[in-house]
Every structure is written in structure tokens, then in C-alpha cells.
């Protein structure tokens, strides 16, 4: 089975500005891919190209094995798109907006179920123009979900949502991926959202793909960083900081955060014991996506 999304050497320029440069990427069916990157990294442009709103300057894109520029009508019914800052017909109600968009999709029957899914049933008759930003964002997700799409392209879908609504949305998306095998491309600035939702993370910077890793691999234990719980931590931290094989030893909340240069954890433990410190714990540290992100971007 071909990958759900195949992007090969895609470049997009707007005049002299290169928005996306030589991007190649594949997304498997049922996979949740997180798109990360600073502002202007090319995330939105990539999603626009995938959804057929923007034509690539060069390179090829295939969704479900088909070219969105040539076979758009075969792809569109299988795809749900939520663009950044979703716009609606403000003078119409939530239900009317969705019903019009559903009519264009040929799937008018699923509106109530979709409204219920995103928690919008109680405001269904309110005009969209009167809704808060968070509620509008929900309407945006609802319109993307019309017709039970197999592929969701979501550009900052949690923007403007409160913590609780964000969690609800992330749970819903995870459920769609796990139970209905919906493929999701999810762009966000929120590292913890990408960490909790995505199977894989692609980091864009200046239009280029600078990293693409499975989230589990990124979040694995870092053998060069440990938290040490020891008696008299101030003195121990000073002693450790003087060692050539230690990059840094910082005291934080009664623990010493140790980053090793070329030393090992047994070497560290042996050193502390030999120096007369009573070590009660050496806790390996997990990498965070934020650390990885900053490292990749050389920040």
C-alpha cells in the first residue's frame, strides 16, 4: 500500500521568497505527523500545498497515490482541512455554515454527529460571528471532520483553545487515528501537544526539513543526562563541575542535574561514592521535544 502522503523534492517560492525548499516526506496511513518549526518555517505553506490551495513551484505531491492538482476531485472527499485562522460566514449559524460546507462535500447527513463530536451542539443555532475564538476553532475542526475523512490536515488546530478544550481535541484526534486509522498532519507551536499526539515529528526551518524522527525515539532516555540525589548536594555539585568528563552540574530543587561530556553514569556514581558522598539515587533524564527542537535549530 502506498504511503498516504508522498512529498518529493517540493519547492515553493513566492517571488524571491523561498517558503518551502526541496521538501521530501512520506506519511503512512493512520500515522499522526507533527509539523514543527518557528514562524515562517513553511508549515502552513506545506499544508496549503497538500490541500491543493497552493501550487508547488517544483516537485511532486501525491495523496492516496494521486496528484492533488490533477485528481483533486478524487482526493477532496477523503480529506478534511483546517487552516490557520478558519473563516466562516459570520452572519450564518454554526449549523448553517456546516450544512453549506457539507452540501459542497455531498455529506449533509453527518452534521449533528459532527457537532456532537466537537461539543458544539448547544451553540449550533448561534451565529458564528458571535462565537469566541476557541468556539470558532471547534467549528473549524467540525467542518474538517464532515464526511469522516481518511486524512486530516490541521494547521494549528488548538490555537485559541483553553487547556481543557485542547485536551479534548487531542484525545479526539488520537482516537480518530487509533480507531478509524485516520492519517493526521498536525502543525503546532506547542511542543507538549505534538509530544502527546504525534507518532512522528518533522521539523522545518527556513522552508527546509531539518529533522524527522519518531516521537518515541526523540523522547528516549538521554544517557548523558541524569539527576543525582545525594546528601550535601552543594559540595557534590561543585566537585562534579570541576571534573573534565562532566559538562555541567547544576543544583536544582535539591537535586544535581548532571550533563556528562564523555563520562558514564557508573563513572559518576563511583566518583561520588569515592569522594564520600552518600548517593541515594541516580535518575536518567528523558529528552524533551523542546530540547530536541532547540538543538536541531541550534538555538
Amino acid at each position, binding site marked *: 500500500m502506498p504511503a498516504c502522503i508522498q512529498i518529493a523534492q517540493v519547492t515553493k517560492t513566492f517571488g524571491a521568497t523561498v517558503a518551502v525548499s526541496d521538501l521530501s516526506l512520506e506519511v503512512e496511513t493512520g500515522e499522526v505527523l507533527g509539523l514543527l518549526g518557528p514562524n515562517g518555517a513553511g508549515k502552513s*505553506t506545506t499544508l496549503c500545498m497538500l490541500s491543493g490551495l497552493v501550487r508547488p513551484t517544483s516537485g511532486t505531491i501525491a495523496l492516496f497515490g494521486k496528484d492533488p492538482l490533477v485528481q483533486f476531485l478524487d482526493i*477532496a472527499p477523503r480529506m478534511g482541512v483546517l487552516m490557520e485562522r478558519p473563516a466562516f460566514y*459570520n452572519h450564518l449559524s454554526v449549523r448553517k455554515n456546516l450544512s453549506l460546507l457539507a452540501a*459542497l462535500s455531498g455529506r449533509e447527513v453527518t452534521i449533528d454527529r459532527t457537532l456532537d463530536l466537537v461539543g458544539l451542539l448547544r451553540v449550533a443555532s448561534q451565529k458564528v460571528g458571535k462565537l469566541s475564538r476557541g468556539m470558532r476553532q471547534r467549528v473549524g475542526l467540525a467542518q474538517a471532520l464532515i464526511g469522516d475523512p481518511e486524512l486530516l490536515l490541521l494547521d494549528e488546530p488548538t490555537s485559541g483553545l483553553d487547556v481543557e478544550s485542547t485536551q479534548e481535541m487531542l484525545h479526539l484526534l488520537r482516537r480518530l487515528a487509533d480507531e478509524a486509522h485516520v492519517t493526521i498532519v498536525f502543525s503546532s507551536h506547542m511542543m507538549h501537544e505534538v509530544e502527546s499526539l504525534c507518532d512522528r515529528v518533522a521539523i522545518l526551518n527556513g522552508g527546509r526539513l531539518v529533522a524527522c524522527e519518531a516521537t518515541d525515539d526523540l523522547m528516549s532516555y538521554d544517557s548523558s543526562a541524569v539527576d543525582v540525589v545525594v546528601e550535601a548536594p552543594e559540595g557534590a555539585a561543585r566537585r562534579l563541575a570541576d571534573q573534565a568528563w562532566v559538562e555541567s552540574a547544576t543544583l536544582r530543587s535539591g537535586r544535581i542535574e548532571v550533563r556528562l561530556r564523555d563520562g558514564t553514569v557508573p563513572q559518576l556514581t563511583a566518583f561520588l561514592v569515592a569522594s564520600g558522598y552518600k548517593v541515594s539515587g541516580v535518575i536518567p533524564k528523558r529528552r524533551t521535544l523542546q530540547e530536541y527542537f532547540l538543538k536541531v535549530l541550534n538555538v
Partner: protein
Amino acid sequence: MIGRIWTAYTVELRKALRSASTYVGPVLVMLAVAGALVVHPVDRDGASDYGFVAYATPLALNLLGIFMTLVFCSGLVASELSHGTIRMVLVRPLLRREFLAAKLLLGMTYALGLVVLVAASAWGTAHALGDTAGVGYGGEILYTTSQMRWAYGAGMLLSMAPFAAAVSYAVFISTLTRSTGPAAALSLGLWLLVEGIKHPLGIEAYVFSTYLETPWRVFSGRVDLIDTAWFPEAKYCLGVSLAMALTFAFLSVYVLNRRNLNE
């Protein structure tokens, strides 16, 4: 394709019917017909009041009607671009040319609505307040009521040709801009510019606005007891208008197809 265009058209129609701005044009043209009574009063004196209809119709349609059609249609795509709603629509199974076809159909529906409304108000007023018997001279009926109705009806049909060109022109302008205000200003500004230079440049025969009066010539002529022929004027009106309507429609498709909808 026809099915998708029809669906998109019904969606556009439902949206337009729920927007207050849609009703501004119809109200204004009806006021214009009512206002025509000041210049051309009607009363039940036994003389035919087709003169009122012949005066009110071009007044309401060729000035206000065309103006309102240009304003309405120049917002059709521009408003979707400025609000960003076009991105919600064009990720559905609908091609850009089908989206434009639906917009053109909506514009034509609007223009047809204005024409029908003006006709109904002008004839209704003449019928209610005056006389609509045949046109006569010296006691002899030269044009019967039926002949006058046919001339007017044919004029209504023919008037849709320059209106179609106007709709297509305004939708084209609408695809060029990102907001409704500049779109309306540009379409009206260019229109006035062309109106101003078409005669000095000798290009009036190729400009559809030249033929706005053509549909009503036969009816107005009969009111003035002049037997006016439909052809060849009607042929030019139809040919030039439809050619321009098609040209602007193709240009709109070309522009929108090339447009990046990333913001």
C-alpha cells in the same frame, strides 16, 4: 460537473438570500421605478401609460440596476478571499472553475431578479394607477396590448445579454482583488473610464455597455409610434455581450486557477 456546479450554486443562493446586502439593489430599483412617477406621472385618462414603463425601465435598470449588479458581483469572489472562506470551500470536491461558474450563475440570478422586479413594478404601477390598453393614434390602435407585452418581454430576455457581460466583468474584477471595497471601486471606476473613452476612441461598438438601451428600443419606439426593427442592433447586442461575457469568464478562471490561496 453540472451536478457540482448546481450544488455550489444552491449553496451560493442560500448564502445570498440570508445576507441583508443582497436586498439593497432590489429595494433601490423599486424606489427608482416609484421615483419615475414624479417625472412621468400616470393616471386613468384613457391614454396608454406605456410611456411610463418605457421611461422607468431603462432608468431603473440601465443606471441603478447595472450599478448594483456591478457592486454585488464584484464582491462575490473578493469577499470570500478577504474573509478566507474561499479556503474552506475550495478544499471540498469543487474545482475552481466550478466555483466561479456558481458565482456567475448567482450574479445572473441577481441580474434577472432586478430585471423581473423592475418589469413587475413598472407594469404593476402602470396597470394599477393608469391605463395599459394598446397604443393608439387618432382613435386607431397601432400596437395592441399583446404586441406591447411581447416587445417588452423580448426586451427583458435580450437585456440579460449585456447584464451577463456585466456580471462576468465584475466577477473577473472580483478575482483580481482581495477585498470587496476595492473590488467594487475598481469595477465601477474602470466601467466609467471605458464609458468616457469608448466614443472618442471609436470602440463603442465593441463595448457591451453600448447595448444597454438596445433591448428597450422596440418597446420605446412603439410608445412613440415609431416602428423600430429588432435587427441588426439586437444581433450586435447579443454577439458583443456574449463574447465579452465568455472572455471575462475565461479570464476569471485563469486568474483564480493561478492564485495561491495561502492567506
